């Protein structure tokens, strides 16, 4: 499912207009992205939580060529699946 399909499904199930559904989806993901970019944690009970992890610089390898490359320090969001989602997705 992509963002447009998510918007269309939300429109039908919440009985709101397509424009409203699009705004809600934008608010949801936009606010999470905003919080993470400010280094803030995100906690959506039942779905997931995110926090930003700092990675130090390290020497990696290009897996195709085997060449050594220096990886500069970076930040990545770390995803943790919520309890309800975890239980529903697993067999």
């Amino acid at each position, binding site marked *: 499912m992509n963002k447009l399909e998510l918007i269309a499904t939300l429109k039908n199930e919440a009985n709101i207009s397509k424009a409203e559904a699009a705004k809600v989806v934008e*608010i949801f993901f936009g606010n999470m992205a905003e919080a993470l970019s400010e280094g803030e944690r995100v906690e959506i009970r039942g779905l997931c939580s995110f926090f930003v992890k700092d990675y130090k610089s390290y020497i990696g390898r290009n897996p195709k060529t085997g060449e050594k490359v220096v990886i500069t320090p970076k930040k990545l969001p770390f995803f943790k699946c919520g309890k309800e989602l975890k239980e529903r997705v697993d067999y």
Partner: protein
Amino acid sequence: MALTKSDIVAKVHELGFTKKKSIDIIEGLLEIIKRELEEGEDVLISGFGKFCVKNKKKRRGRNPATGEDLMLRKRRVVTFKCSGKLRNKINHPEQSDN
């Protein structure tokens, strides 16, 4: 301070929906995402990332606390792949526009 569901509900409320309707809309949105993943379908949000369902094979593991050997059964888990846009936003917040 962490961003929570109630912060998002408050933002939806600002669009002009009642408090109750705002909660229903967000719960509805979460339910759609969870249902989709439960059915084994990935959820792709351009500009944010991709929620994927992965099948993990049964494997031998170890309890990191006790060092005890144990068997991890075959299971299905959700993984997240951050989009390039979100990654840039997190690494260079001052450069992003919104």
